[in-house]
């Protein structure tokens, strides 16, 4: 669905990304992990066509990303950015309906409005429909944005969902639900590419993981192969242990702190 070949990005002589290559297939959930400033957000911006790569190419659905018209692109993929501040008092319904804008001309059809309702319920915020967006809590606002992105690609076949830290500010249940939703989308042949900070979540939900270090792809492949203790130590600089507890489906990554350090925290 999306082939990324030797993508590099440079701004004022500073190299933010260099030679990143991977291929996203329909139905895959990709997690991009890496330390702060490793180039995760830059990569997402390139994949969403907000930035043009200074070298290499991104091919989306058999066509170079640069050759797409913005509106055509908007009908194939949705982007959820990191920050979503809105001060004007739009209702939640109006915000989610914005996801349908690329699909209708002047007035929304009944179907558009039905999709909005559907997506609100999918994210579990049907009851917030008539609330004003600025009056919601941070986590609720983020869920509204998730549901807007969902509304945008609801009817698309083989759509692409780009998420930059989608669960920021959400509580435990809604983090879980958001990832479940993303998994559900991949089962319908959507591709999801998400920047994820919590390595355990990446381990748990991702089909493939791309690990970035200083703008270069450090490791790439299956979560269990990429998220190993050596890799994590050299990318994040923190020694970790990977536990395989009984009765738990997934391995768990915990910081491997020295006794002295844990001793001081107990004091």
């Amino acid at each position: 669905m999306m082939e990324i070949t030797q993508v590099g990005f440079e701004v004022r002589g500073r190299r933010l990304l260099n030679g990143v290559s991977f291929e996203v297939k329909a139905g895959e959930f990709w997690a991009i992990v890496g330390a702060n400033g490793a180039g995760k957000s830059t990569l997402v911006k390139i994949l969403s066509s907000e930035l043009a790569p200074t070298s290499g190419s991104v091919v989306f659905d058999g066509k170079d990303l640069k050759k797409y018209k913005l509106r055509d692109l908007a009908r194939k993929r949705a982007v959820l950015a990191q920050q979503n501040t809105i001060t004007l008092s739009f209702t939640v319904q109006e915000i989610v309906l914005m996801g349908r804008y690329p699909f209708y001309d002047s007035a929304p059809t009944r179907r558009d409005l039905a999709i909005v309702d559907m997506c609100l319920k999918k994210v579990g915020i049907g009851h917030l429909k008539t609330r004003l967006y600025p009056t919601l809590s941070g986590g609720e606002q983020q869920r509204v944005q998730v549901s807007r992105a969902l509304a945008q690609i609801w009817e698309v076949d083989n759509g692409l969902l780009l998420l930059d830290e989608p669960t920021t500010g959400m509580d435990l249940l809604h983090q879980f639900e958001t990832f479940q939703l993303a998994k559900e989308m991949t089962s319908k042949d959507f591709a999801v590419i998400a920047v994820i900070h919590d390595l355990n979540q990446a381990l748990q939900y991702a089909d493939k993981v791309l690990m970035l270090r200083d703008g270069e792809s450090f490791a790439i492949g299956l979560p269990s192969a990429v998220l190993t203790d050596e890799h994590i130590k050299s990318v994040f600089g923190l020694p970790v242990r990977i536990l395989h507890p009984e009765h738990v489906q997934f391995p768990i990554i915990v910081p491997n702190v020295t006794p002295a350090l844990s001793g001081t925290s107990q004091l």
Partner: protein
Amino acid sequence: MLAEIERERDIDKPAVEDRLLLPSSTGKMAWILGFILLACVVFSACTGALSISVKELTEIVAFKLGLISTTSVEEQKSIVFWVIRLPRVCLAVLIGAGLGIAGASLQGLFRNPIADSTLIGVTSGASLFAIFVLMLNVKYFGMLTELAGAYSISFVAFLGAAFTTFLVYQLSKVAGEGGITTLLLCGIAINAFVGAVTGLMTYLADDQQLRSITFWNLGSLGGATWTSVLAVAPFVGISVLFMPYLSKALNLLVLGESQAASLGVNMKALKQKVIILATMGVGASVAVAGTIGFVGLVVPHIIRTTFGPSHKTLLVGSAIGGAIVLTLADTFSRTIVAPSELPIGILTALLGTPFFIYILWEQKRKRL
């Protein structure tokens, strides 16, 4: 919470009722405001040194249209209505609509409720060029006066508005990456510069010139004729007709520039369109009536508070709302100190401010 998730096929079921319809409906608002505007137009046309009753007014109009063959209304009233009142009311409606819609769209573009047309240099540019004409008229603008007659000031003011806006826009492209913030900053910088030049001209002006400069800066619809109405109409008309087509893009801009782009908004094109359309409306208005502040700033705010922030409603509402406010303000400006006239710019601000503060206060009270 997960139980809330429904099956997908629910979408196609006819079960989705009218509750799905959006609460803010543009049509309803347009009817309400349109009716108020009509009432204001009639009120304004009837009020003045020579009072015309509503009954006489209908007779005058019907007679002109040939619906009735004889009329008992005096000839004088008919002439006052057709030659003096009606063009003035039409001009007020046009200028109000132009200022209102430009204010609303620029606030949307800058994502800032305190933005208005002064920010992109329209007003200051028009002022500067008009003052040039006022100061140098006799000596250097003889040829222009010959060409454009009494409208030379308006013509040059419009050029000034367009030129300054163009300068601000180009500068924002050169100075930064062309983002909205750069545009805003360039607007402020150019405004300050143009303001300084205007100040210099004012400093050099003699008493007579100073008086005309001041009067021009305060704005007035006193010079309204059918010619000026016809000159302004196409500019404001295009602005009011085409701006609502940008409402979806302006709504998306609320999500931020990059999110809007990911939903298919071409930022560069949007910026150009909004600026060109706003400059047309405001430039033409300022050119014939001088600077009239406050309408472009406050009317969109009132509409937003009353009818919601969606730009489709907001743009249409601000056009009609601006027309209402300016028609009323003009009526007061020519009656309150009759037989003299108060500059309309003074009135809009004088009456607008307390009302605006009341709205803000009311808004806060509601939220608590």
